[in-house]
């Protein structure tokens, strides 16, 4: 099979206004992992696969230089990896009772930073992003406007990431652009 054309839904669109910088992260390899993450075998396999301690509390993520692992549910994780998604998925499938799906092109990731970041997100989401409630190392799936998103907090400055479905990417981006003018 020929190599498919690699593209992102927003074609790397960006926003740079006073207090808010938004950038599309580009091609991020995303793998949806399923498994019994409470089990010893599963955890050992994941630790070996990613080279870090992968036990996660609900609504948190861990990362190292090559990977970021997000909690999506008790038996579901989202993995961003710099490695080849197919080979990572295959290695995960080798562990008992697991499944892996390459969902790289299912969604895109926006990186939001600047002083207005929290206000912009709060304008479209019912989730409380106050630093006391949503600190660095936490992630959550919630609603932004009418789009389901995976939000994560990466720095106190603040730096947030918003993973949004391909078909909702333009909607979420325009929403952010619109509210950035008046929050």
């Amino acid at each position, binding site marked *: 099979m020929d190599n498919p054309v690699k593209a992102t839904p927003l074609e790397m669109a960006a926003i740079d206004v006073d207090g808010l910088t938004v950038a599309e992260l580009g091609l991020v390899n995303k793998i949806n992992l399923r498994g019994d993450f409470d089990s010893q075998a599963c955890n050992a396999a994941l630790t070996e696969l990613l080279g870090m301690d992968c036990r996660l509390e*609900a609504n948190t993520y861990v990362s190292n230089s090559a990977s970021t692992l997000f909690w*999506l*549910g*008790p038996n579901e994780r989202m993995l961003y990896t710099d490695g080849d998604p197919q080979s990572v998925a295959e290695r995960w499938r080798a562990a008992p009772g697991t499944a892996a799906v390459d969902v790289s092109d299912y969604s895109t990731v926006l990186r939001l930073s600047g002083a207005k970041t929290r206000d912009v997100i709060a304008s479209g989401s*019912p*989730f409380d992003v106050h630093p006391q409630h949503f600190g660095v190392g936490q992630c959550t*799936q919630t*609603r932004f406007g009418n789009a389901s998103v995976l939000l994560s907090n990466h720095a106190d400055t603040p730096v947030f990431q918003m993973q949004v479905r391909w078909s909702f990417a333009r909607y979420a981006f325009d929403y952010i652009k619109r509210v950035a003018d008046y929050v």
Partner: protein
Amino acid sequence: MFIINCPYCGDRDQTEFSCHGEAHIPRPTETKKMTDEEWGEYVFFRTNPKGYHRERWLHDHGCRRWFNALRHTVTDEFVASYKIEDPRPPIPDNGGQS
């Protein structure tokens, strides 16, 4: 606007959830022996109480897990939310006037 407790994610806004009707309706096992009337009973008929009601809820915009909740259908009071496999929390003995 009210807050619903997801047993997996914690307290979240109601707009992240959807309700999917009465909970604890077992799927029939001996389906070949069932009459049309029994099928109708299973598929269509619900208790529809005015008062406390055990319901299936889905955390659509969150962890996308199903859970059950005990809700008052008049006051919208959420007494408890619990995982599918958890024991059923008792119905409060206050006639819904909490």
